[in-house]
Each structure stands twice: as C-alpha cells, then as structure tokens.
C-alpha cells in the first residue's frame, strides 16, 4: 500500500475542519478531528510486526522529478516508533482538548487546522527518507508551532513567544538545510538510506565537519538545547494541549529524531560524540537547575523538558561510542542507545500526563502560579495521583518507567569514563558527575512540582475560582498515560523488544543485523553496583534539598536578568530592528534627488567598470558617414536650445527651447533618411509643446534661488558622468559589431514574406507586432492614469472635519 499518502491525511482532514465548525456547531469539532489520529494509529500499529524483526517498508511518490525531489516514506523501527508517538499522543491530546477548549468561546477551527497541519508535518519528518522533503516538513512544524503558540493572538506574551520560537527554530532549520545540501554534495544523493553506506568515505571529506555542525544547529534549536532552549519556556503561552503535544512529546523530539537518524553517518567523528554528549549533558544540568527558579507550573515543566531532552541527547551522543568499540554486545557501551530510545518513550508518556495535569490545575483554579497553589490534594484526588505518578517517574523512582531508564542513563554515563578515544579517558569523569548533579535537581523539581501544588496549605482566597476536580473527560487522557507509566515498569522488555530494539537497529545498523542481536535485558534490580549507590545518593540528597528548598530558592534571584540568554535574544531583536531602521534611514532620505543620484551614479559606475574590465572601449574611424553642412547647422541649433533650457529662468523659454530640440531632432531624422520618424516626431512634438503650454499655464515659475551651490555642483558632476558614459557607449557600440544585424534579414525578406515596401512599417506591424501591441497598451494605461488623476480628489472636506 502506498502509505506515503497517509502523511497528508491530517492535512486533507484539516480542509473540512472550518466547515464542520461552522455547520455542525452543536458537536465539538474535536470529536471529528479525533478520528484522524485514531485511524492513523491503528493503521501504523499494524506495521509493527514488520519492524520488530528489523524489516522496513518504503513507499514513494514523485514530486518534482526533474529536480530529483520525491516524497519517500521509509518506515523502520525508528520512524515507526516516532509515528506511533505522534499519532498515539496526538489522539490523547485531541481528546483532552475537547474538554479543555470551550466550543463556544474558542476559535476551534483555527486550532484544529493548525494541529492537523502539525501532525502532517511531524509524520513527514519522521518518515521522510529524502533530505529536502524532510527539511520541508521540518519548517512546516516551525510554522504550525508558531501558529499554535500564537493561538490566543490578542495576548502580547503569545505573540512574543510565537515569534521567538519561530526565529530560533527557523534559524536552526536554515543552518540544517545548508548541512543537508553539503551532505548531498558529498554523497551525490538526497536519500538518507543511500548516504549511510557511504559513511566511511564521507568522514574524510572536506565538507564533513561543516555538514555535521550545521545539521546539529538544526537539531539543537528544535530540541531546545543550550543555548537555544530559551524559546521553549516562552512557548508555554500556547494552550496546554499544545504544550503537551508539541512542546514536550513530539515536536521538540524532532531534533532527537534527526540526531538518531543521522547517527550512522556522523558517529564515526569524535566531534559528533563530544558535541552531542557534551551539549546534551550540560543542557540537562542547566534545565534542571533553573527549573527550580520557576514560579509558573508550565514554566517548571518547560525547563524540565529542556533538561530531559538534554538527557536523551547526551545518551544519543554516547551511543556513538559503539562505533569505536569491538564486540559492543559484550560491553556496557551498548546501553546508551537503548537507554536513549527507552527514555524517549518514558518521557513522552510521563511528561504528557504532567502537562495535562498542569492544564487541569490551570483550568479548575484559574492560576498556574505555584505560590498561590497548594493543598489541592483532597480537592483533586485523581489529578494528584496522576501528578505523583508522572513526577515520580520523572524523578526516577520505582515502580515507574522512568526509574528503569534513569538507571540505564547512569550506566551509560559511567561507561564513558572507560572509553579511551577522543581524550574521553581524561575528561570522561565529568560526564557521570554532571549527570548525577542533573539528576539530583531533577528529583527536586519533580517533588517541587507535585508537593507545592497539591500538598501544603490550601489558599482559597488567592485562587481566582474555587478549586474542584476536573470533569471526567479531561481526566481520561492523563489517567491513561499515568497507567502506561506504571505498565512500562512491569513490562519493560516487551516494550524493549517491540519498540526500542528495532529503533536502536536503525541507529546502529553497522553493529547489528537484527533487533534480536541486541542483548539487553532490562531489570529493575541489578545488584549493588555503582549505579545503585548513585541512585540512592540522588534520593537522599534530593530529598534533603527539597526539604530545605524554601531556604535556598531565593538565591536564584541573585542571577542577574541583564546578562541572561533571554536578554541577549531581546537585545539582538531590538538591535536588528532599530539598527536596520536606522541604517535604511541613512540612504532612504525621501528626496527624489538622492534616489536619482544613486541610480545615475550606479549606471556610470557599472557601465564604465564593465567597459574597462572587458576592454570594450574601441573607436573605429573607418566606415563613418561624412560630415555635411546641414547636419552641423542643426547640431548647433540643438546644442544652443539645450543650453537655453539649462539657463532659462522663465518656463515659457524652457518649453519653447525644448520644442526647438524636438524639431531639430525631427530634422536629423530627415537627413538620416528616416521619413517615418521625422513625420511622427513633428506631430508628437507639436502636440507635446501644446500640452506643455497648457499645463504650465497652471504651474509656477521656475525658481532657482533655493538651490544651494554644493547641490548644483554635485548635480553637475553626476550629469557630466552620465554624459561621458553615454558618449563612450555610443562610440564603442558603433565601432564593433559582435554579430551581424538582423536588419539584413528584414531588408531581404520584407517584400517576399510580408508583401510590404516600407520596411519600418512592416517591421512594426508584421515582424514585431507585439511591440506595437504593448505600445498601445502603454498608451492606454497612461490615458487611464491621466483620467484618474484628473477625477481624483484626495482630500474630502467632510473627512478633514471628522479627523479634527
């Protein structure tokens, strides 16, 4: 089946959303939209048996064959895993949104159109094998994310956040496009599948490092890695279903997907390993550290998402170690890749539920400010239970899924200390230390999120509305996700075999032939190893620090806002805005004269430069027409009348002198044997002069007093430059013919082909009929313009009064 078209199913469905919203107002539009992800999810689940054993499916659809651009849907373990996340979480989020967004007050048609657009874009990213279409979908996610963050477009913060996310992710996307182009130049193909086997040759190419860094720009901006993460907290202005879907479970994971997908190409390089692991781990620490500064529930979750993305990113980087080790199946290095994918699933599940809880709290109490919340435990028992499950999983406590992947994360980071390439043996000790620190803070903020919201003292006076449990429909999705969190803990190996191992195979195709070869068995208990003691340490220290949180949380205020990354972004935006404005005001003076000076100077500069550079200036004195008496007389008249125009102080003299120039030109036409031109020129000149006189009767006298000497000198300079240039061009073009003129053809065929004797007329009406047609069109346009101007009255008297 050509499942490539299924990518576009959500987009197709989006076409009907506005109609359904307007016509079927009684039923919440979300119910119709819900069908789409459910159908897609059930279809893609049916593909699971293929990928479990390492198989893959390809479906193609040619888009622009001449440019070699096609939609190629390639489904293997990795893309199917992401596809299931997108459609599965998508279905739950749509269900949740039905109860979250009121059908009477909200503009649901906008919301669901954007959401479906996003779904298509996301499916496109994870299934595209073609780099260019991947990029296309990549930017489409940025656009739909922009629209969704700015959904409540009347709020300033929404528009600000939307723009910020757009600026940063599109910047990264453009960088990534550069990386893709370099990759395709190196490998001679846009197909990722065809690039992977060439990995060993690509690494020695000059462009390799450039491509690597550029692609990582794309991945890091999208996945909110340090220092690009700053857009994600501001993206929290989006409606909560959007935050749960785009900004935790799916879109921000596109960067992770890209890193995982391209690992086989780049992992050979030490730079890749250092960059991905280092940036990821630092982001993990940074995000978790600053999550505790936040006062907004969604802000905490945003920073926690940044941190968790960093964690997964570092694991993806560490998985590259497998490319440099023999017999990976026997070592601890094998864990990194598995842990990355496993934690990715866990994170999507528990973070999705936590966001939905944050939304419920917001919805039912009217605030997300954690300082006002507290003691909701008894009022919202179900939400509290879900929050505890999600947060404990995030903190890495048993018996929840997060515990398992957190343990494996520590194992993988510890294994890096034993890695003896790329000077990891010296600096490698930093990895487990930073990972441990990050985990401690993760533990604290997880507790902070739950217990400062649900435990402690209830403050009903500070809440905008009395708190109560959410309606049952809104709870379905988070409860389902919370159940999954627990279920994953008890069947980790089933998840491992079905979803994780096929995805790891896609990341490390050189190391394994089939998912069965990945010998990893997930266990909750694996003896008194170092990881176990590290985990105990995290619990102990984390709990102590949480207990004393109120004492030291204030120290966050010591960090000055003025030198933060946000301030940097704001200043850059401000500078580029005002800077560009100021810069253009330097040359955009509003004076016509300035613009004309620029234009004429450029003409002189470019034409003379070209003449000089190409050695085109030649004067050929042979073959010239003789100088006759009449010509000289007319020439004198021409030059004389031109001078008269230049120095005349009266408008009448000017007009008459202009007429004189026109008539001398008509005489030239006579002498140079152009009877048609002479006739036309005489007629037109006569009409022109009459018109001039008519119009000038109403216009003021020419006054030259105001013109300053400096301007006049500058004008003269430019004028002389243009004059000299034109003379040189005339002389050079006269003296050399690059090719024979087409005139000979006209002269010879005019009678035979067109049956006319007057060659000029035949050219105009037969050979170059379109010229004449457009000439008439120009006349017509000018005529319409003139009539309009005469009829147009700009200021109406009544309007003026109203304005005053």
């Amino acid at each position, binding site marked *: 089946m050509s499942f490539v078209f299924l990518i576009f199913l959500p987009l197709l469905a989006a076409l009907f959303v506005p109609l359904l919203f307007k016509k079927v107002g009684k039923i919440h539009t979300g119910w119709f939209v819900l069908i789409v992800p459910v159908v897609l999810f059930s279809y893609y689940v049916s593909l699971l048996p293929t990928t479990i054993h390492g198989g893959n499916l390809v479906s193609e659809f040619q888009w622009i064959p001449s440019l070699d651009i096609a939609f190629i849907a390639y489904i293997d373990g990795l893309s199917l895993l992401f596809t299931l996340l997108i459609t599965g979480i998508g279905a739950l989020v749509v269900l949740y949104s039905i109860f979250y967004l009121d059908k009477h007050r909200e503009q649901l048609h906008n919301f669901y159109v954007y959401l479906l657009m996003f779904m298509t874009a996301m499916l496109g990213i994870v299934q595209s094998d073609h780099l260019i279409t991947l990029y296309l979908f990549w930017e489409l996610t940025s656009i739909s994310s922009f629209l969704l963050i700015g959904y409540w477009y009347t709020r300033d913060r929404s528009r600000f956040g939307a723009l910020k996310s757009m600026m940063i992710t599109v910047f990264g996307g453009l960088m990534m496009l550069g990386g893709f182009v370099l990759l395709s130049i190196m490998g001679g193909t846009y197909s990722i599948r065809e690039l992977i086997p060439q990995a060993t040759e690509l690494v020695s190419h000059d462009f390799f490092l450039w491509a690597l860094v550029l692609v990582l720009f794309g991945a890091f901006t999208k996945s909110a890695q340090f220092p690009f993460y700053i857009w994600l907290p501001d993206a929290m202005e989006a409606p909560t279903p959007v935050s749960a879907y785009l900004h935790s479970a799916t879109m921000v994971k596109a960067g992770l997907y890209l890193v995982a997908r391209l690992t086989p190409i780049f992992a050979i390089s030490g730079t890749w390993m250092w960059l991905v692991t280092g940036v990821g781990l630092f982001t993990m620490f940074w995000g978790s550290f600053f999550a505790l500064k936040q006062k907004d529930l969604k802000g905490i979750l945003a920073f926690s998402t940044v941190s968790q993305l960093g964690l997964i990113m570092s694991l993806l980087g560490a998985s590259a170690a497998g490319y440099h080790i023999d017999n990976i199946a026997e070592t601890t290095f094998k864990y990194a890749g598995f842990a990355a994918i496993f934690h990715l699933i866990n994170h999507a599940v528990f973070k999705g539920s936590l966001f939905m809880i944050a939304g419920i709290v917001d919805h039912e109490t009217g605030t997300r400010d954690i300082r006002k919340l507290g003691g909701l435990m008894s009022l919202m028992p179900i939400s509290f239970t879900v929050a505890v499950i999600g947060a404990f999983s995030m903190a890495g406590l048993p018996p929840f899924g997060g515990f398992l992947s957190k343990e494996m994360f520590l194992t993988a980071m510890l294994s890096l200390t034993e890695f003896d390439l790329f000077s990891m043996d010296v600096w490698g000790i930093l990895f487990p230390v930073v990972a441990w620190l990050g985990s401690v803070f993760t533990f604290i903020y997880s507790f902070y999120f739950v217990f400062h919201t649900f435990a402690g003292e209830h403050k009903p006076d500070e809440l905008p509305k009395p708190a109560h449990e959410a309606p049952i429909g809104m709870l379905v999705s988070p409860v389902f996700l919370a159940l999954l969190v627990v279920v994953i803990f008890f069947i980790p190996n089933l998840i491992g075999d079905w979803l994780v191992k096929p995805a790891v195979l896609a990341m490390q195709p050189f190391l394994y032939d089939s998912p069965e070869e990945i010998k990893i068995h997930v266990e909750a208990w694996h003896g008194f190893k170092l990881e176990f003691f590290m985990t105990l340490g995290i619990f102990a220290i984390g709990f102590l620090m949480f207990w004393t949180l109120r004492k030291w949380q204030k120290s966050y205020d010591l960090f000055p806002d003025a030198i933060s990354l946000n301030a940097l972004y704001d200043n850059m935006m401000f500078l580029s805005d005002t800077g560009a404005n100021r810069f253009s005001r330097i040359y955009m003076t509003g004076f016509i004269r300035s613009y004309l000076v620029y234009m004429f100077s450029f003409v002189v500069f470019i034409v003379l430069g070209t003449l000089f550079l190409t050695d085109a200036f030649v004067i050929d004195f042979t073959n010239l027409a003789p100088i006759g008496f009449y010509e000289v007389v007319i020439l004198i008249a021409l030059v004389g009348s031109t001078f008269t125009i230049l120095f005349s102080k009266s408008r009448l003299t000017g007009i008459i002198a*202009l007429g004189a120039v026109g008539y001398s030109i008509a005489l030239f036409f006579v002498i140079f044997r152009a009877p048609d031109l002479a006739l036309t020129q005489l007629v037109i000149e006569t009409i*022109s002069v009459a018109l001039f006189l008519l119009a000038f009767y109403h216009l003021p006298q020419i006054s030259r007093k105001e013109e300053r000497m400096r301007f006049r000198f500058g004008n003269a300079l430019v004028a002389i430059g243009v004059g000299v240039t034109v003379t040189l061009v005339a002389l050079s073009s006269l003296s050399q013919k690059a090719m024979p*003129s087409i005139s000979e053809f006209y002269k010879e065929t005019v009678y035979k082909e067109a049956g006319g004797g007057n060659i000029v007329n035949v050219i105009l009406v037969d050979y170059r009929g379109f010229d004449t047609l457009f000439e008439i069109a120009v006349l017509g346009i000018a005529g319409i313009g003139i009539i309009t101007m005469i009829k147009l009255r700009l200021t109406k008297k009544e309007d003026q009064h109203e304005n005053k």
Partner: protein
Amino acid sequence: MEIIMSVAIGFLFMAAVYLMLSKSLIRIIIGTGLLSHGAHLLLLTMGGLGGNSPPVVSHGVSVSDYADPLPQALILTAIVISFAVTSFFLVLAYRSYQELGTDNMNLLRGTEDYE
C-alpha cells in the same frame, strides 16, 4: 559624423540628468523629455548613420544602400511611449501642484511619521 553625434548625445544626456536632479518639478519633466530625445538619437547613431536611401523598397536600389530600418522601428515605438509618459508626468505635476500647492520636490517627501 557619428563621432560628433555621439558627443552631442552625451551632451543631451548630461543636460537631461542635470535637469532631473533639480528640485523643481517642471525642470524634472523637461529633463525626462530631453532624455528621451537623447535616447532616440543614441539608437539611431548606434546602428550607423550610413545608407543613401530611406528604408522603403524601390527598384534599382541594392539592399546595402537602405538605411538601417531596425533602429527606426524601435525609435518609432519609443517616440510614442515617451509622449505617453511625458503627458502622464505633466498631468501628475499639474494635479499635485493643485492639491499640494508646491512643485518643490524637497517638500514632497511624504509624512515624517511613516514607518
């Protein structure tokens, strides 16, 4: 002859540009008029001023004796178009003077608070 003509054309262009750079609307329009005159002559001269016979087929004249018809065809079109443009300018100048009360280009800069 062509060399003298080239210099004259350069002179016409120079005068036209000088007029167009001035502040007065009238002088600018006169400048555009001169510019089109110069351009017509330039076209004619670039093709060469030779040819003893006007480009009208007649017996006893060999093909090489006709003046070059192509520049003439181009100029014919150009004359008409420059007439259209000039008259458009004229009406524009007339109307803007009527509405705004000035023909000084320095005062016709648009409003200060445009963004």
